[in-house]
């Protein structure tokens, strides 16, 4: 389509920012931080699960929905972040909280060589390539006898019990260290989720994010407005590795026990995440939020049905992809025009999308 150059490309922001939403969001966040005061431990643990899945989903959405990098190997960074945290705590005697942050950095460092390999593969091959990388990291870490080899290991009790932050929380709420642990990890997950959404939102509204959306919507046009697609994609890949690794470390601080098979599980850390994003709506910030709620409800409804649960989840994912590729949030936004996070910029002009009449066949 050489005609694209005829019409100049313009970028539009559909800014229908909702002030009421900002107020409601602030209230929800306040309430969420106060949650340990009035909900039980098991609810707190469920909320932790929801928040960490949300963080993973936002990261995957950033990769696939905005940068067009469909990875089925993000478990590489969950597992690597978790193992890095374990290594720092067990071998270097670090405080788990500090270890979480360092684990995020370690994950983005791992992403440098893997990006080097993966960016040689395009599209679908990128997807399977990312899976191979995850397998390599899993198999390599399973060789580390000091971290339990193939069977895994646990965090030493005193490492978590003696955390200064934990003591503080324990005294604040007057609970034992295990209860304080749940509160602390919950808060961290909440912070991480807010920070992730905030950063993704800012990234997508920035000039870089604009370029990213441009790259996704139309490579050619993006080039014509001077966006370096490759550099953008690499940056997003590294950022997602950081966020995913950090989240993986946090998840495993809470679990306190790790094994290669669990930490690198493609079902737990990638399949679920993909379903969350697809069901909620790929390419939006709202999508993963809706998706994680639906996912949690489904999981509770179908928990007793074993493999039927995943089977149904898979069928729902396929159906959504075929009939409502913008997901539940997409359906909702289409009907109402509501956008909570107005970042969807589109390139307008230029392209010619064939209409029904006179459109090409097939």
């Amino acid at each position, binding site marked *: 389509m050489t005609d694209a150059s005829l019409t100049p490309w313009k970028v539009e922001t559909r800014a229908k920012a909702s002030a009421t939403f900002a107020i409601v969001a602030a209230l929800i966040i306040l309430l969420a931080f106060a949650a340990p005061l009035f909900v039980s431990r098991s609810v707190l643990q469920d909320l932790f699960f929801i928040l960490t899945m949300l963080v993973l989903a936002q990261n995957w959405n950033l990769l*696939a929905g905005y940068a*067009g990098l*469909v990875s*089925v190997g993000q478990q590489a960074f969950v597992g690597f972040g978790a193992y890095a945290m374990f290594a720092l705590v067990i071998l270097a005697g670090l405080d788990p909280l500090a270890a979480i942050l360092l684990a995020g950095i370690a994950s983005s460092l791992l992403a440098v060589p893997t990006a080097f390999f993966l960016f040689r593969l395009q599209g679908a091959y990128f997807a*399977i*390539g990312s899976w*191979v990388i995850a397998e390599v990291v899993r198999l390599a870490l399973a060789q580390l006898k000091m971290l339990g080899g193939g069977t895994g290991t646990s965090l030493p009790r005193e490492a978590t019990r003696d955390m200064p932050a934990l003591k503080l929380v324990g005294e604040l709420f007057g609970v034992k260290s295990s209860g304080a642990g749940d509160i602390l990890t919950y808060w961290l997950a909440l912070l991480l989720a807010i920070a992730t959404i905030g950063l993704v939102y800012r990234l997508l509204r920035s000039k870089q994010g604009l370029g990213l959306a441009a790259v996704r919507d139309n490579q050619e046009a993006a080039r014509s407005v001077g966006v370096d697609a490759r550099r953008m994609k690499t940056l997003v890949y590294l950022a997602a590795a950081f966020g995913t690794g950090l989240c993986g470390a946090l998840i495993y601080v809470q679990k306190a026990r790790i094994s290669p098979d669990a930490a690198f599980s493609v079902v737990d850390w990638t399949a679920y995440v993909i379903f969350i994003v697809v069901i909620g709506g790929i390419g939006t910030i709202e999508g993963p939020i809706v998706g994680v709620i639906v996912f949690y409800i489904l999981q509770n409804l179908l928990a007793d049905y074993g493999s039927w649960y995943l089977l149904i989840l898979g069928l729902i*994912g396929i159906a959504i*992809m*075929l009939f409502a590729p913008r997901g539940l949030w997409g359906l909702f936004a289409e009907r109402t025009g509501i956008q909570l996070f107005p970042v969807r910029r589109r390139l307008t002009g230029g392209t010619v999308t064939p209409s029904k009449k006179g459109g090409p066949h097939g």
Partner: protein
Amino acid sequence: MMWIDTIVQGILLGGLYALFAAGLSLVFGIMRLVNLAHGDLIVLAAFLILVMVSALGLNPFVAALVAMPLMFAIGWALQFYLLNRTFGTDILPPLLVTFGLSIVIQNGLLEGFTADSRRIPVGGLDSASVALGPINVGVMPLLTLASAVAVIIGLNQLFYRTSLGRAFRAISDDPVTAGLMGIRPKNIFATATGIAMVVVTIAALYLGTRANFDPTIGPARLIYAFEAVIIGGLGSLWGTLFGGIVIGVAQTFGAAVNPEWQILAGHLAFLLVLLLKPRGLFPRAVD
């Protein structure tokens, strides 16, 4: 001597991986589609053969023959009714739909057959071996490699000697002009996937007879197949056979050093090729 034995065993193992990969290579060459459920479809076919062997008392080879048209029909329908609908400019739908399919097949099989390990019995054949000079090779591994070579020859004949093969190549070059020749993409794609599923059935026969399998091993087979395709170069069937052999030899060498390194060694060989020759060892001239 031990090294020669290791290499020979690796080449024979490579035959199995080439069988896993041939269907993937075929489908990618024609429609640029990567089916993430490919490995799970192999496992599905293995269960199909197993059921026919245990329920009907068929010989496994006969069962595979019976399974072929069934798998062809499954592949045809899958492509025609499901995957064809995902084609467009966006790569997400085909990837995510086949990923969902992979999860669906795995869990469907788990529901139907539990997570127990199975094996398709082949009488005494799995322990039979012949002496090739100084080394002994198993009859089943030998048959596997021979089948892989036969499949590659057959697919090449189909591609370069038949009218259907011309249609395959034409549509992968230029679907619009292919339409002007009277080629219907949807039917051709469905036929291609059907043929890929026939190859998958052959792969499943050897997967199921040579080692234990269970519903969850599909993704690993997909990965080996993918590695073989990339090593060989996209769209080259002989390259795919060679790629399978590279993975097989790397794995047996890895295992010879330390049994825990078998799989890792295969992956590392793949990454090495990706590093040195990103387009594979035998890239197709026109792409």
